[in-house]
């Protein structure tokens, strides 16, 4: 369950990064459709946070420790909303670039999360 979510969040984050990166390349600020995309990725991140906490509460222990896992979960959930808000007040290509950077960081966090949880084992 959590492995599938991790892969889903990572893949959508990369797609969002490419999309916003393309907008930055075309010298465009983030638009409504981008924000809908960010909302989707953010929602997945929050679902992942909740599922992760439920799993921890259910007695599962991540390979590399609970504190580390929780910190990465929270960081992952905050990445896209944070950079999304920053792009709201930066209506240039650099706002798009900021969201793209946030999404790339999220994808990297997902790789680490997979590792911390002990991907493939549960």
């Amino acid at each position, binding site marked *: 369950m959590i492995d599938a979510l991790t892969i889903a969040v990572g893949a959508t984050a990369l797609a969002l990064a490419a999309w916003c990166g393309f907008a930055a390349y075309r010298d465009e600020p983030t638009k409504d459709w981008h924000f809908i995309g960010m909302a989707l990725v953010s929602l997945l991140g929050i679902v992942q946070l909740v599922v992760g906490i439920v799993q921890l509460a259910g007695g599962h222990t991540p390979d590399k420790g609970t504190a580390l896992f929780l910190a990465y979960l929270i*960081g992952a959930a905050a990445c896209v909303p944070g950079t999304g808000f920053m792009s709201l007040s930066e*209506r240039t290509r650099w706002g798009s670039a*900021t969201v793209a950077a*946030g999404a790339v960081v999220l994808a990297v966090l997902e790789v680490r999360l997979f590792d911390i949880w002990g991907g493939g084992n549960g």
Partner: protein
Amino acid sequence: MAETVETDAQDTAAADGRRSLGSGPGRLLVALYGIFTVAAASRSLYQLIAQFHVAPLAYTLSAVSAVVYGFITFSLVRGGEGARRAALVCCALELLGVFGIGTWTLLDPAAFPDATVWSDYGMGYLFIPVILPVTGLLWLRRARSA
């Protein structure tokens, strides 16, 4: 429509020098520095509390880098000439730190049982720790003439 918005943004940035450090390309820098502040700070805090005895030097250096990142983020957001100069000094310090500690970790790996944020020139962080201070210095230099 997009063009009008953009000129407006540039006008406000030029008129309001205090905010220009964190707008335009600076916004991307604020985001990256912010992320690195949170990453380095939470990582070193956790390591200092939970496993300080494993690699005290590495964790202390990580904490120092977190403080430097935090200060640069704060300066970029605050804006103004004073903050720009302070950030310039910190970016130079950061670059020295990355190269110094990067070389140190390669020459004397025994001193570092665990990695710091700046180990191996920031390889564990996709070399962003090296790229960030260079772009930061370039941006802060350009922000003066703007």
